[in-house]
């Protein structure tokens, strides 16, 4: 796919339109499909003829499915964009949004919250968020000083802190009662089933400013990828740009994890998939990750709900099972 003749703005709009279309279909399906009924015709009528369905259906669609679809959209968008930013900041294709200690810290916070028996939202969410903020500060402090926040020192600090947190998590699990273990496991795998509109609103208000800032720094990310010296000699204020991106991305990922648990695989693989399709320009990749990552998660959540006869598969299973083959397919296609 060669886009080089068109200007960047028209390319961004083109990509955004394609992905918005896919996202719209995914959301439509997400609202139509579910364990109680499949209402494609109902949804069609609602969307195109403004027909009001009966109250039961209405409740299911708007009060149960809509928050869930919105949370899926937002978590997919945040994790994909977060993964993209960390891959650029750390100049490492294996970077993912939890890499700077966020997974360790938030898990400990969440587990403590679940063990104490407080409510999922806002209690456990707040605890998880606090936990990830603590580990973030630890990572920044550990990698400062002589090493002065280089990408390698941040990466190492993040890995070490996550490893240490894993030990604490295993300990906490070992001493909890079996009734709570199920909740903990579901949180650790990522869980969209307890979404509600309050959560969705708060998350949306938190992450939209983050997306805007990240988009404005997308060209700086392109320059950062040439290496620190090159970026500096091109006029990029590296400390400022790195600092802003780090704080903002960590904030939005932590906020998402607080609500949805540790949804895995999305943040690592979706940026790579989009890069294979649309190229390495972050001005295109940032909107692509927001829309494409959101669509991906909505589709995976949909499958997680409708594949099994009863109940649902954890959505993290689906994101990995679809993502891995898709990535390999695109990688092989690119090589020929």
């Amino acid at each position: 796919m060669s886009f080089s003749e068109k200007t960047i703005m028209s390319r961004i709009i083109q990509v955004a339109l394609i992905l918005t279309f896919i996202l719209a279909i995914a959301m439509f399906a997400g609202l139509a499909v579910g364990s109680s009924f499949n209402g494609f015709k109902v949804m069609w009528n609602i969307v195109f003829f403004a027909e009001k369905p009966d109250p039961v259906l209405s409740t299911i669609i708007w009060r149960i499915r809509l928050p869930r679809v919105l949370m899926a959209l937002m978590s997919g968008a945040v994790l994909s964009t977060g993964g993209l930013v960390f891959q650029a900041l750390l100049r490492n294709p294996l970077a993912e949004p939890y890499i700077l200690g966020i997974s360790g810290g938030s898990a400990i916070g969440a587990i403590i919250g679940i063990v104490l028996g407080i409510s999922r939202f806002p209690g456990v969410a707040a605890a998880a968020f606090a936990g990830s903020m603590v580990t973030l500060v630890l990572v920044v402090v550990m990698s400062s000083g002589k090493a002065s926040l280089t990408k390698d020192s941040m990466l190492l600090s993040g890995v070490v802190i996550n490893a240490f947190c894993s030990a604490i998590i295993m300990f906490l699990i070992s001493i909890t009662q079996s009734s709570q273990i199920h909740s903990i496991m579901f949180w650790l795998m990522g869980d969209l089933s307890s979404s509600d509109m309050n959560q969705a609103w708060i998350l949306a208000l938190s992450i939209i400013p983050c997306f805007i800032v990240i988009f404005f720094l997308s060209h700086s990310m392109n320059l950062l990828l040439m290496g620190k010296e090159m970026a500096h000699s091109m006029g990029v204020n590296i400390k400022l740009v790195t600092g802003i991106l780090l704080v903002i991305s960590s904030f939005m990922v932590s906020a998402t994890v607080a609500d949805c648990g540790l949804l895995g695989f999305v943040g690592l693989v979706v940026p790579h998939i989009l890069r294979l399709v649309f190229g390495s320009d972050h001005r295109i990749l940032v909107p692509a990750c927001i829309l494409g990552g959101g669509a991906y998660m909505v589709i995976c959540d949909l499958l997680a709900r409708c594949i099994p006869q009863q109940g649902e598969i954890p959505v993290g299973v689906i994101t990995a099972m679809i993502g891995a083959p898709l990535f390999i397919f695109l990688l092989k296609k690119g090589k020929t």
Partner: protein
Amino acid sequence: MEKAISINSLSYSYGNDRVLSEVSYDVEKGSFFNVIGPNGSGKSTLMKVLAGVLRYKKGRVLVSGKNLTNYSGKELARHVAYVPQTASAEFPFTVEELVLLGRSPHQGMLGINSEKDHFIANQAMDFTDIKALSEKKIDRVSGGERQRVFIARAICQQPEIMLLDEPASSLDLAHQIKLMDLLERLKNETHITIIMVSHDINLAAMYSDAMVLIKNGSVVKQGSAAEVIKPSILNDIFQCSFLVDENPAGNCPRISPIPEKFKGKSSIFKFQS
């Protein structure tokens, strides 16, 4: 006439490690200037200070007549282009995308390319003969081609001064000469000042208008190639025996380091001291 670069008593330390001591020299505008010296002499550090990558505290550096510390990041990037020794390529951009990144110091935050930007990038790619590679990903091009891509990117910055840190060190002999010819042509056509760190003293001698020899962070000798490249100076600095004669291909000195086994056959060779 205003000098391109004027360095006065520049000192730089990495922590407690003194790397540059009281370095002072000038570079004339539009000249081809080489910095030579043994490994670890501080040449790369000097380049990084001039590029604004490292902040110095002691001494004074004037770039195009203005104090280096008074330049903002982007402003300096419009005057000085830096081609470092290594460049990372974890996320492959295409050649054209990379060359266009050189226009960033002239653009806003989002780096939107205007027609003028595309025109300048095309000119730069034509000049460096890489137009045919524009759609290729940077990790798929050869070493010689990659160097030309980075030089094209530097040209897009429209600088007055271009700093190159050992640009030819990983290239074969033919590509080394081609690269140097390209830089010479650039200097002649656009009157840009070229400052280059080089391990290859012969290459430096063939192209430089002036050079400076650095050891242990201090200037040992500066002047024309003929003034700097003398066995009496080089033997001591590099701790090696050199033979210096006239390059048969042109009017410049040529050095040959003498291996152990050839020493003592001095009657056959003519020495210059």
